[in-house]
């Protein structure tokens, strides 16, 4: 199996967030993966209530647990920081 690139994981994670949160106004390609996820500048227009849905979606889809070992707010800072976390955990393949 070939290893996914960081860009591919980022696209997959962005797609997952869009699907889980029923976001219809943007496509994954339009989302800047470096922009803080919960800032007003982010194309996804998320609020803090969305954070728990993202956490649960990541846990279920990639089989990781996001707990206090690394502060959640650090992991959820941006799409890129989520990708970094998944790579660090060796959890870049979806389990469901």
């Amino acid at each position: 199996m070939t290893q996914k690139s960081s860009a591919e994981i980022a696209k997959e994670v962005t797609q997952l967030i869009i699907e889980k949160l029923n976001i219809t106004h943007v496509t994954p390609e339009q989302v800047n993966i470096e922009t803080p996820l919960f800032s007003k500048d982010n194309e996804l227009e998320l609020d803090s209530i969305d954070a728990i849905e993202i956490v649960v979606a990541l846990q279920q889809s990639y089989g990781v647990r996001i707990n206090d070992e690394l502060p959640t707010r650090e992991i959820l800072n941006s799409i890129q920081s989520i990708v970094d976390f998944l790579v660090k955990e060796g959890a870049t393949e979806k389990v469901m």
Partner: protein
Amino acid sequence: MDTNTNFKHKMAAHCETGTLVGLLGNAGLEITEPMAFGIAHGIFFGYFESKNFPFPTFIVRTRPGEVREKLAKSLKIDINRLKFKNQEKGMQKLDDLLADGRCVGAQVDFFYMDYLPEWIRVHNNVHFVNIVGKDGDDYIISDSYHHQIAKLSASLLKKARWAGGYMAPKGFLYYPEKIITKPDLKKPIIKGIKKASWNMLNIPIPFVGVKGIYKFADKINTWPKLTRDTEHLSHEIMKINILLEDQGTGGAGFRYMYATFLKQAAAIVNNPTLDEMSERIMKIGDDWRNISYFAAKMGKNRDLGSDKIKELSELIRKQGDAEKAYFTDLKKVY
């Protein structure tokens, strides 16, 4: 910018424990955030209805400042605590301490921490930061919610230290005076576990500990009657998620942090049972996270019918059952 004694800044799950372990680390006592939380038996639950609160609320940890006090007592750390009515004197004392080469913990209103993004800053009088130096008129701040050391102007720090309202900081400062750099953690760990179990099971008040979880499960059924309209109810239901996940809890209402404490404790006291208890509370944490998710979805989708509230109530009741069994077993370990 210069900081006193090359303070090592680190992000943390929670501001109180993060600030505390940062201060202690700087003074030579290296301790992890979960270890500080566990020794200080920070894990808790309480459901409150009071005239002081606009709406019923719950807590998942002991009250602010308690972790600092209990850890200091348990590890025999001498911590100086200062409050000031006079703002000028309070700022001068801070300057004197910094000039003396000390790093100082401070209670502040989170809203004024302008190095953090605007969208996360809300008025909260019980935020803790370390003040680790001064550069001209700016103070150098180590805030465990920020990824790096930051600067804060003297005028904003003053506003933050003397913000008014509930749990006003009153200029509160604290710093370790005398510490043991390599304390034996075995007895404090065991004492912390026993006390946490006692707090969750035996405090004879009907709305704290496990009894508080059951109270929450019962009372949430009355929330629709206490709210003005659907918008108000959805706001209060979504707050469940915020209180469990979004306020520096380390996730799942501090249950994950307690699991990490037990994992670290197992190695120190050489007791594999604590590893098992760590796994169990981690799973209980997963269920709290599911409740958080369930509540967030309910609130967001305005799916607030009585059947849904009842379902949420039952999920919370099951947590009461799980924590009752859990802390009963944890109590038997020592």
